[in-house]
């Protein structure tokens, strides 16, 4: 039986639950009515404990159990949740995460030192529980009977469970459930129902045909016993009869499984839940009343049995649980690799479609062309949907920073709050993963260097609580993330002084505001007098810049002394397939990403300088023929493609405009990585290769020509 998949899912889901716990704990400070949140935190801990129990991860279970007990006390209203408890619970969440990590990398091994680290946390948790409150049953110790009471049927439950055919395929092992039951009590008798097993040839080893009748002695509540089977509630038919059930209940049980009524009675007897006499008596009663089958309900009501409402209540609960599960499971986990494959194939589809398009146009067959345009439209929609699949909201990443801000503000003793905007902005999954570290660094910098101390803030008339804000939005084909703070801003003098000291600039050189700010991205640069373990070593900002440039993005800083600083990160939204605008220069075809194209105008009178008049505005342009050294003379009728990036417009002078086309981006070999202005290549419908222009790089090169000497390998 392959438990690995189920285990992997367990780890992933538990991590999600831990994240939810953390978010809820951090938010609890601001809330007036905390009952809902506390309930959510409790449920998260409870689910982790339960799932861990199914896999036999005892260490996790025992630790989480104490956490759960404390949360239970809070939930009941006997304890209020306060700052120190939040910090303690956050630390416990971390510890559970660490335990899970250790188990994932070294399954089956106990990390003693790690477990010891949990001991002080457990001690603190128990302090909350105090002496008067009894912690619920420790699942590790076998359940002890209270002496003196005759253990007869007082707490003897009868559980009838028939696991669905797919339970093995879903990664659940029926045995593990029974094992877990054993932690809540003792299984005194068990009978396996094998009547559904087909002949050996017809049997599918991956399907489950078994059911179990279990006699179970326990003092746990019915909800707890039902909770054991939480994971398979959809898949199995489960009946739990509480102790002291009347025989009528057993009748109902029997009736509810008509196909095996006779044998069921025998099994009940064998389990010890019923005695043979009771069973016979019950059946006799029924037979005597009416020859046909009487609705069980009436018998039970007559007998004054409580079973009906009890069972009805249980059924209701099951239904509600199923509804909840249905709502939660609106999302599916998919392997990222499968998505990549899908997108690759769609890329090929687009190329093939473009090829067919070219031929359709050449053939001059109207029907074929119409048909083909329908096809192209559909392919475009499929492409858009597929790309959307990889898009993830940045909100999850932003909310991780709540924890960072919470911890760091405590560490450095400043009161800082994090404000988040634009959480619904979506990015490609890989970009979201890679942007996490640089953003963390920027946030920490903002807190450590940016936000001024409380006295300074009071002097400057700012509110005592500092604000770091994160904002994300889309802008013409890029996604923009801003990290701003309302602290002291960048100290120009200090930066210039430090740069002079390090020899980064020559003395006497005058730098603009932007250039001064850009200095802090130099490797090893820092104006901090002391190095804290947070920052100041001068390692961070250039790593941040490098990581962002590796994602083909840009990073800028704007700052006002005394008011605050804003770091703006721009990342391209583009993935493998973009809408492109093809232009021709000489014999070469280049592609401009369509979302950067603003308009096209004719290129009139070449006056010699590199700017022109665009409806009254000055439009600088780059002559691509010159830039790329395309052989041949320029044509008589040239065109300017006006492109827009980061709020600035400029033009590209080209020969011919060839129109829009979907473009599959094929990466260029690494040997072309130094070519500024080309970001990739694409295959046209004709089979030729077109180069994709890197508009931001072109703009940067035109404005700030690189002056430092090239390094030859």
């Amino acid at each position: 039986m392959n438990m690995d998949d189920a285990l992997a899912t367990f780890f992933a889901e538990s991590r999600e639950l831990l994240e939810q716990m953390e978010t809820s704990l951090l938010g609890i400070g601001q809330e007036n009515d905390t009952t809902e949140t506390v309930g959510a935190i409790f449920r998260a801990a409870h689910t982790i404990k339960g799932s861990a129990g199914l896999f036999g991860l005892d260490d996790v279970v025992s630790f989480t159990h104490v956490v759960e007990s404390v949360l239970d006390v809070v939930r009941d209203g006997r304890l209020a949740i306060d700052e120190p408890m939040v910090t303690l619970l956050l630390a416990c969440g971390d510890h559970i995460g660490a335990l899970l990590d250790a188990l994932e990398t070294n399954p089956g091994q106990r990390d003693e030192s790690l477990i010891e680290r949990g001991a002080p946390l457990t001690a603190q948790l128990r302090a909350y529980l105090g002496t008067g409150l009894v912690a619920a049953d420790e699942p590790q110790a076998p359940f002890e009977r209270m002496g003196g009471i005759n253990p007869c049927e007082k707490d003897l439950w009868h559980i009838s469970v028939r696991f669905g055919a797919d339970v093995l395929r879903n990664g659940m092992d029926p045995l593990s459930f029974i094992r877990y039951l054993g932690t809540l009590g003792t299984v005194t008798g068990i009978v396996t129902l094998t009547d559904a097993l087909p002949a050996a040839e017809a049997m599918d080893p991956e399907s489950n045909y078994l059911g179990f009748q279990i006699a179970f002695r326990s003092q746990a509540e019915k909800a707890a016993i039902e909770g054991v089977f939480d994971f398979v509630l959809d898949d199995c038919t489960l009946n739990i009869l509480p102790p002291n059930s009347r025989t009528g209940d057993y009748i109902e049980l029997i009736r509810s499984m008509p196909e095996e009524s006779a044998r069921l009675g025998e099994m009940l007897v064998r389990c010890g839940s019923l005695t043979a006499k009771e069973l016979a008596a019950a059946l006799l009663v029924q037979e005597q009343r009416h020859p046909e089958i009487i609705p069980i309900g009436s018998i039970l009501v007559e007998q004054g049995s409580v079973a009906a409402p009890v069972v009805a209540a249980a059924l209701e609960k099951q239904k509600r649980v199923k509804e909840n599960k249905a709502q939660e499971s609106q999302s599916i986990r998919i392997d990222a690799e499968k998505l990549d494959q899908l997108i690759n194939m769609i890329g090929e589809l687009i190329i093939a479609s473009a090829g067919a398009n070219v031929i359709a146009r050449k053939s001059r067959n109207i029907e074929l062309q119409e048909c083909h345009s329908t096809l192209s439209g559909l392919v475009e929609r499929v492409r858009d949907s597929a790309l959307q699949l990889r898009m993830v909201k940045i909100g999850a990443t932003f909310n991780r920073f709540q924890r960072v801000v919470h911890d760091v503000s405590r560490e450095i003793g400043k009161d800082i709050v994090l404000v988040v905007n634009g959480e619904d902005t979506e990015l490609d999954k890989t970009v979201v993963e890679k942007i996490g570290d640089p953003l963390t660094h920027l946030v920490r910098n903002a807190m450590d260097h940016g936000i001024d101390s409380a006295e300074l803030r009071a002097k400057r008339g700012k509110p005592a609580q500092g604000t770091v804000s994160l904002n994300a939005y889309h802008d013409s084909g890029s996604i923009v993330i801003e990290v701003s703070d309302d602290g002291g801003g960048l100290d120009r003098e200090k930066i210039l002084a430090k740069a002079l000291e390090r020899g980064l600039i020559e003395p006497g050189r005058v730098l603009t505001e932007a250039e001064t700010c850009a200095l802090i991205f130099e490797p090893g640069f820092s104006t901090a007098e002391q190095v804290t373990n947070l920052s100041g070593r001068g390692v961070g900002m250039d790593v941040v810049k490098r990581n962002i440039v590796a994602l083909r993005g840009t990073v800028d800083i704007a700052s006002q002394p005394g008011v605050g600083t804003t770091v703006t990160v721009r990342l391209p939204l583009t993935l493998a397939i973009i809408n492109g605008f093809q232009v021709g220069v000489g014999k070469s075809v280049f592609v401009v990403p369509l979302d950067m194209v603003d308009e096209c105008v004719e290129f009139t009178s070449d006056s010699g300088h590199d700017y022109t008049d665009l409806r009254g505005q000055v439009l600088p342009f780059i002559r691509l023929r010159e830039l790329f050294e395309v052989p041949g003379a320029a044509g008589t009728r040239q065109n300017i493609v006006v492109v827009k990036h980061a709020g600035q417009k400029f033009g590209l002078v080209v020969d011919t405009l060839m129109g829009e086309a979907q473009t599959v981006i094929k990466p260029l070999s690494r040997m072309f990585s130094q070519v500024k202005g080309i970001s990739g290549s694409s295959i046209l419908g004709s089979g030729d290769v077109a180069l994709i222009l890197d508009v931001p790089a072109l703009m940067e090169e035109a404005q700030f020509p690189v002056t430092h000497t090239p390094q030859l390998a």
Partner: protein
Amino acid sequence: MNAVAPTPPHLPTVVASTMPAMRAEPTQYLTFQLAGESFAIGILSIKEIIEYHALTEVPMMPSCVRGVINLRGAVVPVLDLPARFGRPSSEVTKRTCIVIVEIEAAGERQVIGVIVDAVNEVLDIDATDIEPPPNFGANIRADFIQGMGKVKGKFVILLNVHQVLSINDLQAAGAAVSKDVLSLN
């Protein structure tokens, strides 16, 4: 072409002055013509040979990088070997082909094409028939030559593809060119 061993040939990137007798020697070489001279490359690096067809030029690259082609959906750079060796390029004739070579460098597999004037045959050259390269006189950078093979009384220059097609080299050369070009703007 691609028949034989699954492991890539362990070719030394710096040509040793003594005979490298220890490595798993590929004894089959593809010989071809470049500007009248015969060269050869071990066949284990060769993926395929295709006809010469229109290249797409890539601006701001050194002249030895002629451009890129579309190889069944992948964009493959194509090198001009004479230019790489510092000689004038040859004209394109009907016998001109592109030899697609696959090398592994720094953990990455790179597929690169080279233009050749004409492709000759696949020869078996025994290890004993390979002489160490001359220190000078071949008009090519010494580290490009893996050895000199003796075939029918004549010498064939065995190329060290890892050096000839070294990405780092080409990348740096590209950097130099592009900096020059852009600083003029």
